[in-house]
Each structure stands twice: as structure tokens, then as C-alpha cells.
């Protein structure tokens, strides 16, 4: 392949997993596995050369992990043998990575296959690439560094900016919320720290890309985005994994703090391979007049649990959560969104679109809570589900709680089958059934695609087309 755009290659491939191929064993410097205990944490902390406070934070989380009960409503987790997972892997890096060329070939190739270096060059302000447990590449374009924007692997931020990190880390999504958040805080490794100074607008998105390179691997990356007053940032998170036997477990966390008048857009395009059990913890705290937008696209993985949450703390704070999930085949997506209204005149909007095909299950689980004193707040929720065949399922579990008489919550949901007349119409115009299905699905989620950068939309469209062509031959 020449230097030409790899985008084209991605668009031509049979499936994204195919692009990544089968997992190749690679040299690892360190690998930690076994029962999750104090000694593992000690070792992990030592490897990372962490300050004492972070070590203590991990130990406290471990204690909580041991105490907290396993959530009963979570299915599929019983397949996970936490003790058999590799809890931490450090890929062997020979020298300091300043450029893609400094990376070992196999790791570099994985990212190149996904077109990441090219996307970085063309339209990102900065990029962090995480391979298994470590951030292997982290670069911010010079012009943005000069403006005071900080983008670092999380570990480095802990050492370099302890005061800032301490102020936010684990404060937005504390370890004690549930068993998996405790596990995450005890074992976190990798991820990005982003700080946008007052009044700075980052014109192009910043991206973090996560790859789980081997089976029976636990990935616990932690991303923290702090947007100071009046700043603007768009953060894109991509996830992918090659094919392998056995399961891997992803228990990541994203914490966002949007200060007064700040805007944060956070986009996730999750396309793990079918061996990944994906558990996500995402929450934003939104101050006065600030706005946080979540776009959560869940396409891959065996089982996904993800509910981006917004806490509207300040007056006039706003949030929008767009959730798209596609379950094609015997996979489960338990997704949704949560918004908690605390400040006055706050507003939230949740739009969820799910598509179930070939025995796929989609669950929408949402929570809207308007607390006392959140005067004149409004929340709207709409979730639409599309079921493409008889074996597939769609469930919606919204939860709307209002404690404030001047506030409103409005919720609407529909579940529909793929309408025969639409299919027939497209068929009659010479479009095959598979093509028609992907067209209908793309039309169904077009509202959400609108806000994304063009290149992403192209890739996403392709992914959806591939999902359906797999079923009945490429259209």
C-alpha cells in the first residue's frame, strides 16, 4: 500500500476485525496476573513510580472492591474469571516514543491499520494511544502546547501535576459507587489527562485510542478531562481489538469537569472485537452555564455496559447525551444515559437509538433525576429501537424521578420492526436487501451522525455497512 490514504483501505475491508487480524504475541516488559491483592497493587504502584497518595488511593479502592457486593443485575460477568486475567501489561518499548517510528513494529502496525497516524496528522490537535495497559504514544501539536493545553498519559500527569490531578481524580466518579468502579480505581493504568486553560478553544478534536492486544487481558484506563472557565474541547475516544480466543475485560473510566461557561464534547466510538466484555464508567460534572455533550457509539464487543452520566451542578448548565448501539449477532448492549439536575434552569436531552439484528439484544437503561431546588429544569428523553428480525430483542428501562414542581421530564420511546414497505420500496429500486438494511439503519441514526467529523462518519458508515453485509454477502 502506498502513502495514499488508508481510509480507503478501511472502507474496502470486510470487517474492522479483519483489518486488525488475529492477535500477535508481542514482547512484554512486565505482566501482572493473579488474585487481586495488596501485593499486586504494591507492585503496580512501584512499576509506575507513583507518589504515596496515589498508592493509598488504590489500596482504599481495593478495600472497597473486596467489600462491595457483585451487582445482581449484571449478566455475563460470571463468565469473567477476574483472577485469570492479566491485570497489567507493559509493552516493551526500547526508547522514549516521540514519533510513530519509535514504536515496536507490531504495535505501530496495529495503529496504522486503523489509520490512526493519518487521522492524527490531518485533523487532530493531539492523540494518546493506549496499547493494553500503557499509553504508548502521546503527542500534542506544538501550537496547542504553547497555549497551555496539557495532554499527557495519566501516570505522567499524576507525577507532574499532582495538585490538579488530586483535585479531580476519583472525585467525579468515586471508587465506592459499585464493585467495578472500585476495581477500576485499584488497578487503573494508562489513559489520558487533558487540561484546557481558561478561555482556550481547541479547534480540532483530541483523540485517545485504545487497543487491547491480547486475550485474557484487563484494561483499566482512566481519562480525566478538565475544561477551565470558558474553554472548548472535543475529545474523541476510539476502541478496538483484534480477534483472539478467550475474553478480555475492559473496565475504563472517564471523568469530565466542565467549569463555568466551558463546553466539552466527548465522543466514543467503541468497536471492540467480539471477545471483549466492556464495562464503562463515565461521568461529567457541569458547572454554571457549561455544556457537556456525550456521543456514545457502541458497535463491537460481546457485552457492553455503558451509561454516560451528567451531573448538572451549576445554574443554567446543559447536557446532551446521544447513544447509538448496534447489536448484530448474539451480543448484548446494555447502554443508556443518566442525568442528575441540581442547579436551577438546567436542561438535559437524551437521545438513544438502538438496532438489534440476528439475535442481538439491546437494553436502554436510563435515569433522570431532578432534585429539589432545580427550578425550571427540563429533561427530555427519547429512545427508539429498531428490531430487524424475529430473534432480536429490545428492552427499555427508563427511570424518571422528579422532586421539583417547576421542572419537567418528558420521555418517549418506540420499538418498531423494519417496515416491509420500506424494504420493498428500496428493493423495487434495485437495492439489495443487505444494502437496504444498512441504508435504513444509517437513516435511523443520521440525527446523531450529524455532529461528528466527516472522516469518522465515513468509517462509522462503513462499519455499519459491513455489519450487514456479513450477513448476506457484500452488497
Amino acid at each position, binding site marked *: 500500500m502506498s502513502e495514499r490514504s488508508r481510509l480507503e483501505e478501511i472502507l474496502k475491508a470486510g470487517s474492522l476485525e479483519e483489518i486488525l487480524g488475529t492477535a500477535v504475541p508481542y514482547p512484554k516488559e512486565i505482566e501482572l496476573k493473579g488474585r487481586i491483592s495488596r501485593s499486586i497493587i504494591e507492585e503496580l504502584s512501584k512499576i509506575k513510580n507513583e507518589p504515596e497518595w496515589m498508592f493509598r488511593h488504590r489500596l482504599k479502592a481495593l478495600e472497597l472492591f473486596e467489600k462491595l*457486593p457483585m*451487582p*445482581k*443485575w449484571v449478566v455475563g460477568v460470571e463468565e469473567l474469571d477476574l483472577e485469570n486475567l492479566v491485570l497489567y501489561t507493559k509493552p516493551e518499548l526500547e526508547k522514549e516514543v516521540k514519533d510513530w517510528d519509535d514504536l515496536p513494529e507490531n504495535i505501530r502496525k496495529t495503529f496504522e491499520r486503523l489509520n490512526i497516524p493519518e487521522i492524527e496528522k490531518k485533523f487532530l490537535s493531539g492523540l494518546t494511544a493506549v496499547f493494553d495497559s500503557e499509553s504508548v504514544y502521546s503527542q500534542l501539536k506544538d501550537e496547542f502546547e504553547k497555549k497551555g493545553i496539557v495532554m499527557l498519559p495519566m501516570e505522567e500527569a499524576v507525577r507532574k501535576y499532582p495538585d490538579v490531578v488530586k483535585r479531580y481524580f476519583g472525585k467525579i466518579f468515586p471508587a465506592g459507587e459499585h464493585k467495578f468502579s472500585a476495581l477500576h480505581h485499584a488497578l487503573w493504568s494508562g489513559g489520558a489527562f487533558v487540561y484546557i486553560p481558561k478561555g482556550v478553544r481547541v479547534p480540532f478534536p483530541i483523540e485517545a485510542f485504545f487497543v487491547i492486544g491480547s486475550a485474557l487481558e484487563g484494561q483499566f484506563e482512566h481519562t480525566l478531562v478538565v475544561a477551565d472557565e470558558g474553554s472548548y474541547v472535543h475529545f474523541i475516544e476510539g476502541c478496538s481489538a483484534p480477534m483472539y480466543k478467550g475474553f478480555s475485560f475492559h473496565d475504563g473510566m472517564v471523568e469530565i469537569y466542565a467549569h463555568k461557561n466551558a463546553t466539552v464534547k466527548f465522543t466514543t466510538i467503541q468497536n471492540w472485537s467480539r471477545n471483549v466484555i466492556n464495562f464503562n464508567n463515565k461521568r461529567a460534572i457541569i458547572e454554571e452555564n457549561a455544556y457537556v455533550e456525550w456521543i456514545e457509539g457502541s458497535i463491537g464487543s460481546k457485552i457492553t455496559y455503558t451509561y454516560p452520566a451528567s451531573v448538572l451542578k451549576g445554574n443554567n448548565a446543559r447536557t446532551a447525551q446521544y447513544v447509538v448501539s448496534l447489536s448484530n449477532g448474539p451480543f448484548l448492549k446494555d447502554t*443508556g444515559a443518566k442525568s442528575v439536575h441540581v442547579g436551577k434552569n438546567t436542561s438535559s436531552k437524551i437521545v438513544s437509538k438502538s438496532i438489534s439484528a440476528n439475535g442481538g439484544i439491546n437494553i436502554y*437503561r*436510563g*435515569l433522570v433525576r*431532578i432534585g*429539589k431546588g432545580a427550578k425550571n429544569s427540563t429533561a427530555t428523553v427519547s429512545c427508539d*429501537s429498531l*428490531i*430487524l*428480525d*424475529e*430473534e*432480536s*430483542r*429490545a*428492552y*427499555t*428501562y*427508563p*427511570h*424518571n*424521578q*422528579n*422532586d*421539583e*414542581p*417547576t*421542572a*419537567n*421530564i*418528558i*420521555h*418517549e*420511546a*418506540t*420499538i*418498531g*420492526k*423494519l417496515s416491509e414497505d420500506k424494504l420493498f420500496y428500496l428493493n423495487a429500486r434495485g437495492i439489495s436487501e443487505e444494502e437496504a438494511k444498512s441504508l435504513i439503519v444509517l437513516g435511523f441514526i443520521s440525527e446523531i451522525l450529524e455532529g461528528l467529523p466527516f472522516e469518522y462518519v465515513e468509517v462509522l458508515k462503513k462499519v455499519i455497512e459491513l455489519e450487514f453485509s456479513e450477513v448476506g454477502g457484500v452488497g
Partner: protein
Amino acid sequence: MRPNELSKEHLSFPSITRETLEKLTYQKYGDSPTIRSYTKWKLFEENSPLTLPTEAKAGEGRIRANVLFSGSESKFDLPEGVEVEEGTLGLSRPEESRILGFHFYALKRGYRLRITKDLLEPLVIVSHLSEKAFVSHHLSIEAENVNVPIIIYEISEKGAKSLVVELRLKNAEAEILTIGNHTSLSHYLLRATLGDGAKVRAFTIVKGGKMSHHREDYSLEGIKSELILRGMPIGIGSAVDYLTNVLQYGEESKSETKVNGYSHRKGWVVHRGVAKVFEKARGSSSEVSSHVIIMDEGSLGVSVPMLEVDTGEIETASHSSSVAQFDEDALFYLRSRGLTREEALSLFVHSIGEALSDHLERLKAKARSNIIELIKDLL
């Protein structure tokens, strides 16, 4: 099989030992924030049959009833075509949850009615408690090839009262009007199975007491079975957790649930409406709409409409919900036409009540007079 033979199997009601009861929990998935129950179970725990006497004297009944449960007393005055014997239909079990465990633990006798003729007058059932005790009432009703109007009055004045009604319909049409008017703790469970061609039109109005857990389960098993369910939970300085569960198994079955709740003076109104369409239920339609109005500061409204669809061959499935105050624009419209705020509010609440009871035929008037009675305190 003749119904007679069936009844022998369940002649006595299922019982439960104290030991088993101790192990039961109120809700299996009590730890999930989205499906957690809102009933204040602690109150039932404090007023359980383990702490309170399970017998009580009969109170003064003002309503003429065909079936009267008052305290521990049961009286029957049945019209032609209705027979009574002891037993249950076996649609509810004590092991299901702690509250049902309590119900069966305290239960002294269960009765079973068989309706074999069309009823001209509505069958009136009263369940009443006016003493500090935990008392259980249990009634099963079977109806085949008939048309029956049923009115259930539920009054809990003191202590904790539990009423379970089991209903089995086949080729029958039933209108069910349930009126709950409580001051203390109450637990209600209606469990109905609708066989082939069964049609139910139900309207429930419950004014919550200290804590009222009111649950209605309908299982649409027969082909073309139909349910129209309307509910009006009201919390005025009191709490009501209203649950409607509609399970659809039958092909071309239809269900429509509409609930309008009111929360007033630190009231607590929760509606959780589940509609589940199983794989077998091809060509079915299901609709849930759940709206709770918060009338003043300090009142809580929660609406949880859940939809589970297991088949792609669905006609329609949708739900909508809102938790809000009165529509100020509409109030303003009426006020600009010369009505006072109070008059406009009253017009609203009454017309919602009328709209909700409009699907009833023979019990419409009865429903409306009860609505007027129970919403008085709202206005």
C-alpha cells in the same frame, strides 16, 4: 378438564414457614438504581405479621358487598351464577417475595369464586381493616364464557392490610373497577390470566395511605386477548407505589396502559409500568403511557415505563412518560376566559378522570362518582 377437578389441586392455599420467610427479600434486583422498588419496605417490616397480630375484629361496613372481608371476618352474599369454595387458583406463591411471604404467613383462609352466568349487577368485593394488625385477604375468581362487571373496594384504616386477587378468564369479558382509599399501610396484588378471546377493561383509582403498594399483573396468554388498563394513583400527603405489569404471550394480543398520577402536599406517587411482549406474541401491540403531575413543592413523582420486546414481528410497541406540573399554558388559556385558577384546575383533573374512565361501559358512572370523591382533596 372440568373446573371441579382443577380446584382439588389447590384446595388449600400455599403456606410458608417462619424460617423460609426470614430468608426472603422484597426485591430480587434491589440493588439496581433503575429497577429498584420505591415502596418503603421498612414500614412493612415494622408492621409485619411477625410483629403485629394477624387477626382483627370486623369494622363497620357501609358498602353493600357480595364478598365482604373485614378484619378477619368473611361474609358472602352471592348472586345467582356465582359459587364459592375454599382454595386459590395458585397464581401467586409465598416464595416470590417477602411481602407475599407475609401475606401467606398471615392468611387464614382463601376463597375461590366461579362465575358461570352473565352478571346483571356488578359483583362487589370489599376488603377492609380498621385495627392495628397485619391481616391478609385472598380471593380467586374464575370466569368462562361470561360477561362480568367487578368492583373491588379496598380500605385500610389502621395496621397493614394485604389483599391478593387472582383472576382467570377464558372467552370472558370483564370490567374491573378498583377503588383503593387508604390511610395506613396496604399491599394489593391483582394477578390475572387472560385466555383465548378474553377481554378486560380495568380502571383503578388508588388514594395512597401511609404507604400503599398496589400492583396489577396481567398475563395475556390467549390469542387475541385484550387489555385496556387505566390508572389514577393519588398521593396527598401520602405515598403510593403503583405497579402495572402486562405480559403478552398470545398472538395478536393487545394491551394499552394509561396512568395519570397526582402528587400533592408532600405526596409520593410512583408509577412503574412494565409491558413485555414475548417471542410467541406475533402481531401484538403494546402501549404504556405514564404521567405524573406534581402539584406543589415537596411532592415527589416518579415514572418508570419499561418496555421489553422479544419479537421482531410486532405491530406497535411504544411508551411515553412525563413527570411535570400542570400545563401552565392551558391553565392560562382557561383563566383568560374567565375561570379562576381553582376552577380551571378542577376542570382539568375532572376531565382527566373522565377520559381515563371512558373505556368502561357498565361501571362508568360508578367510576366517575368515586373519582369525584377521591380527588376532592386534590383541589
